[in-house]
């Protein structure tokens, strides 16, 4: 563990906070996408390419909630990039694909093929491998 100096907190503490923000980002994005998909699928309007269609869809509570959660997820990811490397954040947050497959199957009754499950297993293995490296290799925490 790196000794604390000034505002620098111990490395274990930093790692725990980084993973807490990773978990928050993944949850916000997954629930945001789920709410958005739920609202769009239950929308009474016919699908259209018109921007007005999307603006009207935002009046739906589920769609509005989804958009709000996705905006929060963008801000959370920015905070995460202040704590960890981009090359760490990218693969580790790909775990969101696994959660999306699970939520899609559970709540939207989407078909998840064997190929998709194989893909999710690979994502978990790759993310675990990247997660075993130091989360920040630039600046004072290198």
């Amino acid at each position, binding site marked *: 563990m790196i000794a604390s100096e000034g505002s620098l907190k111990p490395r274990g503490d930093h790692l725990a906070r980084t993973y807490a923000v990773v978990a928050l980002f993944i949850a916000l994005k997954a629930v945001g996408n789920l709410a958005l998909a739920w609202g769009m699928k239950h929308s009474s309007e016919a699908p259209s390419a018109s921007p007005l269609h999307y603006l009207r869809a935002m009046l739906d509570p589920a769609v509005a909630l989804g958009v709000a959660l996705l905006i929060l997820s963008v801000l959370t990811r920015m905070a995460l990039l202040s704590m960890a490397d981009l090359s*760490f954040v990218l693969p580790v947050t790909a775990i969101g*694909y696994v959660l999306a497959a699970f939520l899609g199957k559970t709540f939207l009754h989407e078909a998840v093929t064997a*190929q998709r499950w194989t*893909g999710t*297993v690979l994502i978990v*293995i*790759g993310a675990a491998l*990247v997660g075993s490296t*130091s989360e920040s*290799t630039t600046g004072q925490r290198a």
Partner: protein
Amino acid sequence: MKWVLVVLMVSATVASDVLQSFEMKRSGEQSVGARGLVRLLRLIAQRKFLILAIGCLAVSFFSFMALVQTEPLSFAVPASAASYVFETALARFVLKECVGPRRIVGTLIVLAGVALVGG
């Protein structure tokens, strides 16, 4: 048109993430509490690279939306994952991150996983 949209989407994603990472590292560690998020919004308004990054994010989002209107999601999702390769390379050479063999292999496995999820 399909490949123009893919190039636009991937380039915009890569530019947005590299710019965000560069600026956020310079700004110091941010928190995700209510005060932290307000501070973050103020930071976005002050830093031109962050404003540019959000512009790129919007281009990436609308390119993706345009792509899925004409192409299946099973093409669009794996195509968007191409950004992992470019971003990892730029993280190494532009952001000066230490990208070792374990991180490269892990990222390639994730890339294969994303391609299968979308495929």
